[in-house]
């Protein structure tokens, strides 16, 4: 049950983009084309899930035993950067086709605040290793859902005729607001069921 609850929370009720404001730069920057949005989603799902695992492991076996929690931020960012680097090398060697599809997105992910954010949220919520991984996956799925939806919408903007001052970020933000208005409807979902 907790599995479903964390998953639903990450995807719908506390969607990273629409409710938590995490990973916005990439969300706005990489959603102009549908195919790139899909590619980035794949990379984020992969990295965020396992980065959560690695960060949680690091927390449990290094930071806590040695009382280094105050260095968490610096430790996590290094862990994530290293992990992304390793993934890149690993994929390049073992799965060239996957590397080709995700490769260009991987370096961008280090600075995607959603990844570090997910790891931080795991600590804040005391999720541990297993649930931390699930939460990472859930957050990544939610982020991907958001960017895919947004890319679909943005494809329609190829031909729209609007004042110059609205183009780009203003329009993207206003539409993200409208989308998040829709996602408000999910608030409290399954709260009663899961109590």
């Amino acid at each position: 049950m907790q599995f479903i609850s964390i998953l639903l929370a990450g995807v719908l009720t506390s969607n990273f983009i629409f409710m938590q404001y995490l990973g916005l730069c990439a969300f706005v920057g990489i959603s102009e084309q549908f195919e790139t949005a899909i590619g980035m989603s794949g990379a984020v799902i992969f990295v965020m899930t396992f980065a959560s695992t690695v960060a949680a492991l690091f927390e449990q076996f290094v930071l806590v035993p040695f009382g280094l929690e105050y260095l968490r931020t610096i430790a996590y960012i290094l862990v994530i950067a290293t992990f992304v680097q390793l993934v890149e090398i690993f994929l390049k060697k073992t799965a060239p086709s996957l590397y080709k599809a995700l490769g260009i997105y991987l370096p961008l992910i280090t600075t995607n605040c959603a990844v570090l954010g997910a790891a931080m949220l795991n600590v804040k919520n005391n999720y541990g290793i297993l649930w931390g991984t699930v939460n990472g996956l859930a957050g990544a799925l939610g982020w991907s859902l958001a960017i895919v939806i947004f890319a679909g919408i943005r494809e329609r903007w190829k031909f729209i005729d609007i004042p110059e001052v609205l183009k780009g970020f203003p329009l993207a933000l206003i539409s993200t607001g409208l989308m998040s208005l829709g996602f408000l409807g999910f608030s409290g979902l399954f709260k009663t069921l899961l109590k």
Partner: protein
Amino acid sequence: MADKLLITSSPHIRAAKTVRGIMLDVVIALVPASVAAVVFFGIKALSVLAASTISAVLAEYLYEKAVRRPVTVGDFSAAVTGLLLGLTLPPAVPLYVPVVGSVFAIVVAKQVFGGLGTNFVNPALAGRAFVLAAWPLHMTSAWLNPLTMDAATGATPLHAFKGGQAAGSLVDLLIGNRLGSLGETSAIAIILGGAYLLMRGVIDYRIPVAYLGTLGFGVFIFGKPGALFQGDPLRGILLGGALLGAFFMATDYVTSPVTPRGRTYMGIGAGLITLLIRYWGDYPEGVTYAILLMNLATPLIDKFVVPKYYGYAHDALARRKAKEGGR
């Protein structure tokens, strides 16, 4: 004389239906529901509907003047948006609620994207969702008792129904003798309007049928607390805003899929999300959010749910053969 002959590309005749005509049909279809609202809730209803409609039209006019675009209030789409928004509001809301809702609907949800045709969420519903999030108290408690028009305390019949109670006689529900938003109380009036739109070929039957069917079926399964397959689908559909949403909101051309099959999916999806929010979410009713969320999914549905083109089977066969041959 001959040199004045007009040269154009074929076809040389056009169907009678125009955008303006379609919007006018929607306005006509909303008349029964609006009249019912005024009958049950009196001058309050009239002032809310007038405020929402007038401010929607005014907002469209002023925005288009401000950005120096052709003024399109003549196509009645702003009036439709305003009227629809008004019909989703409780009768006793302060008048700034419809005004702010309409301005938000027209300017933020529609015009900044380039006006009619390029907005991606239903403006009326976006407006409603905005005022619902802005002033939740007004939006969930400003009820009036029908006919007597005194302030009503207590929950709407939908609330009672979700708790497993009978929630009033079917006759009262059909006529509209119950608490509720202006346009959602009288089922008969909405169905009358919906039937008119179907008859005039303005809306596709697939969306309302799929929507209400899914909702009714879901209510039948989950509608009774603590027991499965014992719900009352009829009341589940008549209570709340599902009818108004299914006929007038989900069928909005701009924000629903263009393909027939896509529209069926839209209806089913909206039905499922309505159920989800109604029974397992924070909000008493999920119609607004369900349709808004399906609006978001519409570009994806349009992208992936496309009809198979004429002669597709031949291409598919050729591809299969090529694949087998390649092995």
